[in-house]
């Protein structure tokens, strides 16, 4: 297995693409015209989650990697994947008295900027782990591990997973998590206690469609500038809450299906959200075999399909819950990874799309990040006259001067 490394320079946009058989890294200069593919890292192991931590001057990749043989672990790299650090002994482990064993790491989320050594990990079976030493050690958040609802949570198609972590950028004590199937839970005391926050979200697979918990929420997003507003893509249902999850309102107007997995929010516009509707839970492919990303720009009052550059015939594609992402660039980039191993990129907020990787193993997650640091100044262009001469082949600068051989 040959691994290809791509050089990442400050200001580059980097896609961390986790697949069923390793992590790939796609990089492009800030204008995002040309993408280079690096990897696979952690080859042969499934990467369900990847993250970049840029706090405290770091440039640290995190990946949740799982081998079906040897178990799951959290791994990190400080050089964009060239070398990985993985402790010999498993760094995420359930306490003996819980009787639980780790199956998968589904989400790694660096904490707030003002707590640079704090990170969170959502795992299967559903639990939240926390590190307060920059990822060196991880401990389960007891308030959720010992939650009285735990015994009633049921695995969804992907397993009983805690797949979404939303720390409140404005309030250290408040945070949301989502479990399939358990629903949304919120803490307001830094993780000591958690309350189910699913009022208004349907559970179509239960006789009582509005239980306190047990919903199959697939993804929740929040814009840091508007911390009380949350959007949720449910297992059937698209929702918005304006009171931190106390009550959810259906916003599925103008979508071909309200079933789906992924959801991503615009980096600067809190009313702009992206989803990829899938036909149904029995046929988890895009409707009409046309791959379309849907976007709302008015907080869910209306949705519009974005299809330019995406396959519109015979596209039996599935986009999983973490395989839809936005970057922080201007204009915002939007990225979609498919279970058939394709990655599409839009550098104009979704208006048009380009295939930037194909033939990868099934894509499980896509994270779009910007390499920290000051971008290098662009190379100065030569004066026009010289460029014209160069095209005609007159420029001495174009010819390579012979390199003198060393005298032996």
């Amino acid at each position, binding site marked *: 297995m040959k691994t290809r490394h791509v050089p990442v320079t400050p200001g580059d946009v980097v896609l961390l693409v986790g697949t*069923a*058989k390793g992590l790939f890294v796609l990089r492009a200069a800030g204008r995002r015209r040309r993408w280079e593919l690096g990897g696979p890292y952690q080859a*042969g192991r*499934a990467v369900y989650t990847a993250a970049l931590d840029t706090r405290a001057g770091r440039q640290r990749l995190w990946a949740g990697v*799982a*081998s*079906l*043989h*040897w*178990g799951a672990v959290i791994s990190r790299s400080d050089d964009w994947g060239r070398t990985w650090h993985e402790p*010999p*002994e*498993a760094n995420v*482990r*359930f306490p*003996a008295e819980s*009787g*639980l*064993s*780790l*199956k*998968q790491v589904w989400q790694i989320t660096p904490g707030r900027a003002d707590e640079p050594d704090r990170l969170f990990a959502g795992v*299967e079976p559903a639990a939240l782990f926390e590190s307060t030493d920059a990822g060196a050690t991880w401990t389960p958040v007891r308030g959720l591990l010992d939650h009285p609802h735990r015994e009633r949570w049921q*695995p*969804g*198609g*992907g*397993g*009983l997973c805690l797949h979404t972590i939303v720390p409140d950028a404005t309030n250290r004590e408040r945070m949301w998590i989502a479990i399939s199937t358990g629903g949304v839970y919120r803490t307001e005391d830094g993780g000591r206690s958690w309350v189910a926050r699913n009022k208004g979200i349907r559970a179509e697979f239960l006789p009582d469609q509005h239980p306190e918990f047990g919903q199959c929420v697939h993804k929740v997003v929040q814009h840091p500038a508007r911390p009380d507003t949350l959007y949720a893509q449910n297992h059937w249902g698209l929702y918005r809450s304006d009171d931190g999850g106390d009550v959810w309102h259906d916003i599925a107007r103008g979508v071909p299906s309200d079933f789906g997995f992924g959801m991503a929010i615009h980096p600067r516009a809190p009313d702009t959200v992206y989803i990829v509707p899938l036909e149904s839970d029995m046929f988890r492919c895009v409707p009409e075999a046309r791959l379309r990303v849907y976007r709302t720009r008015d907080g869910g009052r209306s949705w519009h399909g974005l299809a330019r550059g995406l396959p519109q015939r015979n596209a039996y594609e599935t986009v999983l819950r973490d395989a839809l992402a936005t970057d922080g660039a201007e204009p915002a980039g939007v990225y979609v990874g498919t279970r058939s191993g394709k990655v599409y990129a839009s550098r104009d907020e979704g208006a048009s799309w380009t295939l930037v990787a194909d033939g990868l193993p*099934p894509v*499980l997650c896509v994270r779009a990040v910007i390499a920290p640091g000051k971008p290098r100044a662009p190379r100065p262009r030569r004066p026009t006259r010289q460029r014209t001469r160069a095209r005609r082949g007159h420029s001495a600068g174009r010819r390579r001067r012979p390199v003198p051989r060393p005298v032996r």
Partner: protein
Amino acid sequence: MIRVAVRIPAVLAPLAGGQRAVAVDVPAPDGGAVPLVRVLEALWAIHPGVRDRVLTEQGALRPHVNLFVGPESVRFSGGLATSVPDGAEVSILPAVSGGAASAFNQGSDARPAGMQTAQV
């Protein structure tokens, strides 16, 4: 004290000081056989990283890892309580099921690899 050779799969060798085989000495009161778990504990004492790849944090054999005492899979001979005599060879091997299974069926408990006896 008895001595047992433990064969390590190539992928775990970095966690065992780069070795593909490790000789472990296991206290045996009467010099006879010991349960496999004692052999493994002696191995973990030298190379603790191997433990978490072979067993879950609850001490159960991972479903897609097979252990053999001599040619026999311990799934058919008493599991971690299988008797290991002096001079025996214990092998840790990935089951053939592990690589083939899709990452997507991880939701349901993967079927234990009890029937996998292939020598990889």
